[in-house]
């Protein structure tokens, strides 16, 4: 019998190439050697396997085997389930993968690879900015999965295809589905039913922003969790989120189309967008007209805010002896239309903080309005009260856009009332940074919505100023009364820092200038009629340019009716109630 020791090189990790070549030669010459080799390698595998569970703790081999066991068992699960449970095969296959992606099956994650089948009930996750994957269904339906996206419960049963988008983005090209078996795409905020179309779904990490559905081709029915539904047609989008009206809107708004055609540093007006078209009817509301009437919305020291959630410029103003209507107006940027968000109190109380209906009375709002993005509310404090003085208007109010209701906050302390206030919301601190225009309460204050508390930080004077937050550096930058100054509002105690600047005199000397921060270009841009002024926060240098096509400004200031719109990468300006809305592309 052959001495097995003569096959030593076979199981010797240090065997040389020559020794193994000699073994190969021996196998060719001696057919019986194959049996010996097979038995030896068989027992070698068995010995390694027998030793495996008792491997020394901490040895690399041991850990790797545990990892392998879990991974391979998970792959087996993926393999087994479709085989046993779904004779029709897997739900979908991975067509391509980029970056880090895993198939989720129960509590186990298996690295995704091209060609791998996805079993019913499985999920899929991409991680990292560059990650992406494409899944293909047997009927040709394809899912493009964007970065940082989590899908759950992929399936195809008697009711049709289904998946749950927990977060992130997918683009689905859905081939025609049987009418009784639409593809169902669920998100935390709603459900989309698809019979055949191309769509994009985005679940925003911010729960307030909800789910956005863009439809490129065909029609998709979207339902929100409040039971409202809308059919979204090709070229339109809709947002399902708590407190957001479920509406189909054009994907490329007229405003965006206009901006795309505009050269840099140019003005354009949006035709037919004078706010007077939606003004409360004076015949129906004769008691709110005051001495000037509706034009006070823009003429009487009043401002506005950008509702970044809905992309609307919201105006509130009037007050003094000029206009006593307390209604809110909003320019809806995607649809380029004006909306009257609330009706005025028909019989307003004069020189009072609130009317008989408990809502705040009309007032000149100056630059004192802010949009609290994290709670989706309008903020207002102080101003010039309808039919009265500034001193009496010292209450803090918020307006909930979702429920269309005002709340009188009644914080334990407040900065008092007064003209010429200004406010800016900082998304990082989630506070309103508020500058008082009334000397007895002068100073930089901050308002914390959750705590419903005001804090006084300094005793500086802000009368007639406008402010904006440098989102990159975390500074509140204030302009007006001929000066520029800033506060570091994110680190330590805010202290006034005067900015010695030159070249901005044409803006700084005007009352209530428009002033906002453009994060895309890292510039503050101000306008108060005439030239547009840009302030570089790094060099603290102004640059101004007279740009043709600018609208006529009004004499009492622009305040918050000049805002940067990120989706347009342009500024919006509302100057007068009878003038069209204007856009400035920097």
């Amino acid at each position, binding site marked *: 019998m052959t001495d*097995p020791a003569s096959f030593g090189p076979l199981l010797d990790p240090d065997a040389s190439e020559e020794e193994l070549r000699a073994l190969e030669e021996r196998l060719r010459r001696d057919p019986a050697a194959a049996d010996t080799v097979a038995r*030896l*390698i068989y*027992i*070698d*595998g068995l010995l390694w396997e027998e030793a495996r569970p008792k491997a020394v703790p901490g040895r690399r081999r041991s850990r790797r085997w545990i990892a*392998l066991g879990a991974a391979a068992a998970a792959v087996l699960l993926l*393999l087994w389930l479709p085989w046993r*449970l779904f004779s029709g095969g897997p739900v979908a296959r991975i067509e391509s993968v980029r970056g880090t992606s895993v198939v989720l099956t129960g509590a186990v994650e298996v690295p995704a690879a091209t*060609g791998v089948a996805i079993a019913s009930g499985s999920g899929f996750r991409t991680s990292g900015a560059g990650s992406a994957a494409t899944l293909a269904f047997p009927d040709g339906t394809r899912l493009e999965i964007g970065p940082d996206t989590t899908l759950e419960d992929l399936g195809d049963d008697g009711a049709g295809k289904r998946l749950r988008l927990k977060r992130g983005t997918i683009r689905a090209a859905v081939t025609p589905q049987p009418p009784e078996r639409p593809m169902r795409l669920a998100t935390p905020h709603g459900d989309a039913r698809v019979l055949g179309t191309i769509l994009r779904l985005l679940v925003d990490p911010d729960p307030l922003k909800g789910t956005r559905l863009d439809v490129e081709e065909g029609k998709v029915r979207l339902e929100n969790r409040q039971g409202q539904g809308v059919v979204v047609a090709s070229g339109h989008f809709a947002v399902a989120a708590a407190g957001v009206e479920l509406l189909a809107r054009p994907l490329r708004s007229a405003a965006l189309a206009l901006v795309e055609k505009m050269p840099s540093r140019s003005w354009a007006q949006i035709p037919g967008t004078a706010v007077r078209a939606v003004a409360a009817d004076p015949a129906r509301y004769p008691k709110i007209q005051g001495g000037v009437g509706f034009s006070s919305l823009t003429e009487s020291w009043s401002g506005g805010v950008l509702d970044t959630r809905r992309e609307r410029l919201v105006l509130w103003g009037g007050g003094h002896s000029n206009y006593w209507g307390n209604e809110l107006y909003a320019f809806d940027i995607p649809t380029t239309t004006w909306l009257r968000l609330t009706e005025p109190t028909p019989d307003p109380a004069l020189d009072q903080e609130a009317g008989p209906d408990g809502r705040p009375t009309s007032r000149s709002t100056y630059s004192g309005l802010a949009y609290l993005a994290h709670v989706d509310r309008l903020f207002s404090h102080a101003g010039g009260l309808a039919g009265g003085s500034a001193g009496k208007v010292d209450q803090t109010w918020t307006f909930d856009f979702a429920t269309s209701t005002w709340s009188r906050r009644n914080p334990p302390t407040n900065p008092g009332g007064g003209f010429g206030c200004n406010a800016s919301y900082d998304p990082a601190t989630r506070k309103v940074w508020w500058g008082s225009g009334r000397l007895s309460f002068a100073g930089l204050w901050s308002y914390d919505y959750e705590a419903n508390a005001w804090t006084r930080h300094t005793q500086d004077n802000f009368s007639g100023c406008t402010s904006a937050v440098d989102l990159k550096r975390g500074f509140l930058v204030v302009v007006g009364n001929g000066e520029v100054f800033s506060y570091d509002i994110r680190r330590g105690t805010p202290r006034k820092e005067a900015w010695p600047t030159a070249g901005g005199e044409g803006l700084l000397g005007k009352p209530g200038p428009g002033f906002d921060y453009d994060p895309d270009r890292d510039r503050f841009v101000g306008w108060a009629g005439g030239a547009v002024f840009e302030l570089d926060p790094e060099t603290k240098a102004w640059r101004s340019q007279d740009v043709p096509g600018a609208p006529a400004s009004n004499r009492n200031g622009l305040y918050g009716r000049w805002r940067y719109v990120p989706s347009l990468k342009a500024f919006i300006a509302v100057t007068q109630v009878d003038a069209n809305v204007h856009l400035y592309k920097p």
Partner: protein
Amino acid sequence: MSEERAQREEPGGAPALPSGLEVLSVTWMPSIRRYCLSIVGEPEDAQDVLQETFLEAQRSFARFKPDGDFGAWLRGIARNVAARRREKLRRTRRLQVSLEPRVLERLEELVREEETVDESPVTLLKRCLGKLSDGDRDLVRARYEHGTDLETLCKGLSRSLSWAKTRLMRLRWALADCVGREMKRRARMGDAGP
């Protein structure tokens, strides 16, 4: 029928639904893992081949017929994976020999023999290891269980390298013979019936 098969099928022969990862881990995994260890030899490389085998199986699952031999299908994939990675697996020159068609053919027969008995081959091996002398058993365990290299082994035993290599080969052969005999014995017992 092997223990592994018994767990895959219900008494009546109807396919059993998997109840989770535990069931799956003890069904096909050990058998394919042993197979990869046999043809590759080096445990870490065998792990890579095993992992790739299951991924490949997943990718090409649509081509597998449910009434086919799943184990043979997986082993075929493992062979192809190992062959494709031959150049990369420099440490495991054994592939030069283990992928020889006649060796693979015989190995396939040995694996199929496993399926004729109702005891796991690992259990049979344990029984055979128990029949070795303490010194021989320690030698085998030092090599496989503790991963000790041969040179270190020899130093500990005050023996030459060639002695250790020869002794280990003979012990493997003896164990292979013992496991083979045990398999045949168990298969005969199974055939006898009530």
